[in-house]
């Protein structure tokens, strides 16, 4: 035997249960240590939890509803430069394009110029909602992030302190070179000193950039460009002898295929890979770039026919200060072992990925090095 209740009673109970669930969810969201705000497709607040209300709404979440982001969130870069919502790197600009995160100095809405503290921002598109909402969460830096910030500050200070004596040494070496006729052995020593000073300068620049990339301080200047233009533009900047060394194959890449990158950083990636190949390849071996495009992504294969990378070291090539001493071409200047670490950080900072492909990917008869770069493809 079955029994039934009137539908109205069931509806009432269901409504009561839903209310209880909703209340419980709100209690849970209010109990988190992160500020959470949902923005609608016009980037106006639709929902906020209690931490967000305490931070920006005088304790009342409903007071935030309908406000635009720029009415209550004022940000500075980690270095303290005020950010406009339209500039690259600002969460508001970033959330138009997809998910992301970053660290910013957050200003107090009540105190003009007053900085509350450095916060970690995360923005995520809520794709399940057709209207196109975005969830922003804001939290204090955790101890590891704070330590990283302190390390970064130390690194910048150290780089600054070292650049001044380095400039003095460089100037002195130039003056010695100009001021006296040097015998062969002294000139040789001087040349070594000059090369080493240059190397230290490069090392400092790379370390600073790497540190900036890893702590989210580096600001990319993104542009959308056709891949053909980017690669050919980079090649045109090379000297003739370098151009002769390179072979380019873009046949598998549509001329319409574009990527969104910082052109300067993109050039630097190719520079690093090319320098690396030169360092580990003999003069007559080719270096090749091949690109392919698919609907969603673009692949750039950077290949050389040097001695390849020993199996035991393949998993470490993107580590800092990693150098393959046994394979190095002694005629090429020494690197600091930061090139590939820096390259990976630059690629990943531009939403791409880089990986070392198996040696036999393209030419099973020879040990080759094949690095694959992949970026999201954009149609323009």
């Amino acid at each position, binding site marked *: 035997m079955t029994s039934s209740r009137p539908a109205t009673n069931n509806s009432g109970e269901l409504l009561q249960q839903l*209310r*209880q669930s*909703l*209340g*419980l*969810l*709100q*209690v849970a969201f*209010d109990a988190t240590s992160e500020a959470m705000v949902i923005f*609608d497709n016009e980037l*106006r607040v*639709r*929902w*906020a939890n*209690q931490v967000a*209300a305490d931070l920006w709404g005088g*304790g*009342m*979440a*409903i*007071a935030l*509803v*309908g406000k635009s982001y720029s009415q209550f969130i004022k940000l500075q870069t980690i270095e303290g430069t005020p950010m406009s919502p339209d500039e690259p790197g600002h969460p508001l600009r970033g959330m138009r394009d997809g998910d992301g995160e970053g660290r910013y100095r957050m200003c107090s809405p009540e105190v003009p110029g007053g900085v509350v503290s450095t916060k970690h921002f995360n923005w995520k598109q809520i794709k399940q909602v057709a209207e196109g909402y975005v969830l922003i969460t804001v939290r204090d830096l955790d101890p590891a992030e704070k330590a990283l910030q302190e390390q970064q500050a130390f690194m910048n200070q150290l780089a600054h302190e070292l650049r001044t004596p380095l400039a003095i040494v460089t100037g002195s070496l130039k003056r010695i070179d100009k001021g006296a006729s040097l015998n062969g052995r002294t000139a040789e020593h001087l040349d070594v000193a000059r090369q080493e000073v240059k190397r230290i300068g490069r090392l400092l620049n790379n370390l600073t950039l790497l540190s900036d990339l890893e702590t989210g301080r580096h600001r990319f200047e993104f542009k959308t460009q056709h891949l053909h233009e980017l690669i050919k533009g980079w090649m045109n900047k090379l000297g003739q002898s370098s151009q002769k060394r390179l072979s380019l194959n873009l046949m598998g890449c549509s001329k319409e295929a574009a990527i969104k990158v910082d052109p300067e950083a993109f050039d630097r990636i190719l520079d690093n890979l090319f320098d690396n190949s030169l360092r580990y390849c003999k003069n007559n071996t080719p270096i090749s770039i091949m690109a392919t495009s698919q609907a969603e992504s673009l692949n750039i294969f950077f290949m050389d026919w040097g001695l390849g990378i020993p199996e035991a070291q393949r998993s470490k090539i993107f580590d800092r200060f990693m150098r393959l001493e046994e394979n190095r071409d002694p005629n090429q200047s020494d690197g600091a072992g930061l090139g590939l670490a820096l390259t990976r950080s630059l690629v990943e900072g531009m939403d791409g990925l880089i990986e070392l492909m198996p040696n036999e990917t393209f030419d099973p008869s020879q040990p080759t090095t094949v690095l694959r770069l992949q970026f999201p493809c954009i149609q323009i």
Partner: protein
Amino acid sequence: MSWTPGAIAALREKENLPFVRADAEGNVVEFSPRFSEVYGWDDGLVGETLGKILPPSFRELHHSGFSRFQLTEVSKVLNHPLTLATVCSDGTTIQSEHYIVAEKGDAETWSFAATLRPLEGPYASPPQSP
């Protein structure tokens, strides 16, 4: 605790401000003639959710905040002025200063009431000083 006995009666007498009262479920049970005059609602509003007099974008937080209060009996919107857009019967909105109170009745059930001071339009009056 965020309520005092007699708060609703005191609010009802406050000047000649529009007044609205809701039951523990958040459904409108009564409103003053002044409320009807300013916002245009008639008796059809009785029994409807309070969310109806708030713009759609405010409803999620209204409902979640209301449900939260039923669990915790704590709210930050009570007993002080709060500026919110209020929806009129014709769909237009008037920025209004809401002063919301809550009161527990004899049967341990909650009642909620608010005065609404219109801050714009023909019935506008200056906001209450803090």
